[in-house]
């Protein structure tokens, strides 16, 4: 494995992947820093422009945007008290008070160092743990894949937001959308309305851009007149050795918390950040000062959320299951690049996967460099006029959806899904479950077809295989936990 990893690093530095990663982290920090733009949207928006590159380069760009975006969110959290991404929500608690007391530079330095170190620990865990999980996953046959797909769909319980029923409603709509086009088993065209454009079903990319970029741009239009007031100036960006020693234990602990949270499908960077913050507050000798502007209150969530980025990639790469929105979009990106996510990726494309691992490790160095040296530049970006940024997102969405197939139908799909997605989100219908349905639907259906063929139509095959039992237990536990949480919420 070390040989593959060394090859990954060699390939990273000798190919365009390093440039892609650098550009990805840079763009990610900007996207993350701008309130209203998320890493998820950034990845969705850039897929059509990187799909022509080799998979290593394209994936390095995506990894860079994801890691940079989650870090970038802390810049606006500290300077504006507005988390640039949901993951930076916990960072506002101590980051903004610290900035108000004139220590914005120190707050950004703490966030940068914690993000880079937390991300590095998470990336190392990803690199060494993922291949072991993939080895087990290589034993999967069609019945295991059916249950794996269903297990992935149960993650809707956790990404659904306020209403689980609305989440599943959207997930089923996604599954229905995925049935459009030629049936994988019989070859019969389904629900195509006689249109050639629908013969292979809706193309994933325009749907993805519509749901995650255009809908968010509509939200920016809706809030275009909300004032953004950047008052804080950055003076000295850095911390002392004593301060570094104070935050280091919190960074390490939060990195493990974040990676674990990320590896559990259905969680996310925001949860990892808040849990890390909570644990740091609990274990700190001066926990009562948290919330007034202490450096540990910035270090813990920032380490946790960037470690979570890497943890979230564990189930995505090894099992092909997206745990949350950004990895769902990345998974879509993998498929658009012609790669089959899951254990086969490790067997068939080790050079790609280990270059990506090298990218996840290296991205943290770029975060450190950009964060410490470019903080003033990124702070200035917060002053960019909102209407120009929104306009840019609309244009990139349109040309992105058009670029892959030169088809105006795809543009219409993007606009349609963007507008409907915007309305659905307003009414409490989350969009990530729809993407989960679109991605996992074909896996479940085609493998169910194969399972029935190999078992002569016997559905009890699911109860005759040990790995299937593991998934059945996981599905029951996941749905049960989701329902229990909802009941608690309902009662309170």
């Amino acid at each position, binding site marked *: 494995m070390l040989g593959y990893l060394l090859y990954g690093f060699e390939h990273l530095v000798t190919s365009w992947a390093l440039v892609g990663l650098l550009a990805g982290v840079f763009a990610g920090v900007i996207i993350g820093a701008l309130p209203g733009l998320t890493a998820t949207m950034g990845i969705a928006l850039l897929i059509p422009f990187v799909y022509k590159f080799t998979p290593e380069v394209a994936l390095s760009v995506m990894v860079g945007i994801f890691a940079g975006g989650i870090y970038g969110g802390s810049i606006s959290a500290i300077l504006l008290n507005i988390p640039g991404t949901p993951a930076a929500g916990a960072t506002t608690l101590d980051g903004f008070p610290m900035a108000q007391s004139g220590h914005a530079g120190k707050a950004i330095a703490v966030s940068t160092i914690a993000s880079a170190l937390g991300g590095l620990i998470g990336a190392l865990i990803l690199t060494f743990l993922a291949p072991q999980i993939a080895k087990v996953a290589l034993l999967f046959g069609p019945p295991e894949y059916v249950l794996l797909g269903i297990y992935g769909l149960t993650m809707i319980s956790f990404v659904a937001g306020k209403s689980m029923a609305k989440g599943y*409603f959207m997930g089923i709509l996604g599954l229905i959308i995925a*049935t459009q086009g030629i049936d994988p088993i019989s070859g019969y065209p389904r629900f195509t309305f006689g249109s050639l454009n629908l013969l292979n079903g809706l193309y994933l990319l325009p749907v993805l851009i519509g749901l995650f970029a255009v809908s968010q741009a509509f939200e920016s*239009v809706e*809030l275009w007149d909300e004032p953004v007031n950047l008052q804080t100036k950055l003076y000295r960006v850095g911390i002392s050795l004593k301060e570094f020693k104070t935050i280091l234990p919190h960074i390490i602990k939060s990195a493990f918390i974040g990676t674990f949270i990320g590896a559990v499908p259905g969680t996310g960077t925001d949860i990892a950040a808040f849990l890390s913050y909570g644990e740091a507050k609990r274990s700190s000798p001066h926990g009562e000062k948290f919330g007034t502007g202490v450096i540990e209150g910035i270090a813990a969530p920032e380490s946790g959320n960037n470690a979570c980025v890497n943890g979230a990639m564990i189930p995505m790469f090894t099992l092909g299951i997206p745990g949350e929105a950004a990895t769902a979009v990345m998974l879509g990106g993998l498929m658009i690049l012609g790669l089959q996510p899951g254990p086969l990726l490790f067997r068939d494309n080790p050079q790609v996967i280990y270059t990506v691992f090298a990218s996840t490790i290296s991205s943290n160095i770029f975060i450190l460099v950009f964060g410490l040296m470019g903080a003033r530049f990124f702070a200035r970006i917060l002053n960019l006029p909102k209407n*120009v940024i929104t306009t840019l997102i609309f244009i990139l969405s349109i040309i992105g959806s058009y670029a892959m197939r030169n088809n105006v139908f795809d543009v219409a799909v993007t606009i349609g899904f963007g507008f409907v997605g915007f309305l659905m989100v307003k009414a409490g219908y989350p969009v990530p479950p729809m993407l989960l349905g679109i991605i996992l639907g074909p896996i479940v259906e085609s493998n169910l077809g194969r399972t*029935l063929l190999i078992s002569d139509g016997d559905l009890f095959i699911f109860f005759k295989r040990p790995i299937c039992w593991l998934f059945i237990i996981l599905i029951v536990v996941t749905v049960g936990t989701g329902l229990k949480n909802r009941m608690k919420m309902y009662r309170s």
Partner: protein
Amino acid sequence: MIKIKTRIFDVGAGIIGLAIAAYIYYASGSFPEPHESQLGAAVFPRLLAILLILFVVFITLDNILKKDKTVFYIKNEMQVLFCFIALLVYGSIFKSIGFLIATPFFIAALLLILRLKNFKTIVVVSLSTTILIYVVFKMLLSVPLPPGIIDSIG
């Protein structure tokens, strides 16, 4: 600002959900019968249609039991609507007219919708953004941007 009752929106979404489920049942009636041990083209979509109906019922019951009175707002609704229309127009004509001609007008329209009033700024932003995107995507990344009527003139 438009105020919408979540309950009303849910009823609308539910009706659309039921219509989709009904269409799936109707359309899948003409799918070929599967051979022995085959899943069949109609089985999975029909299963999904049933699940969709179940969740529509669940959302409706939830609304009735909770006596849901929540509302949500769409602020600046005219701007949102005009942006949607501008997107539709741009999306439908940018291939035939061409990226370089359609895009500055689209950017200018969006900036006007978003109440940017300075004419000079609108012109500068529209033209510079179009050229920047063209250089980055067409020239550096080789993304195919439609030439439109410029091509026929050339």
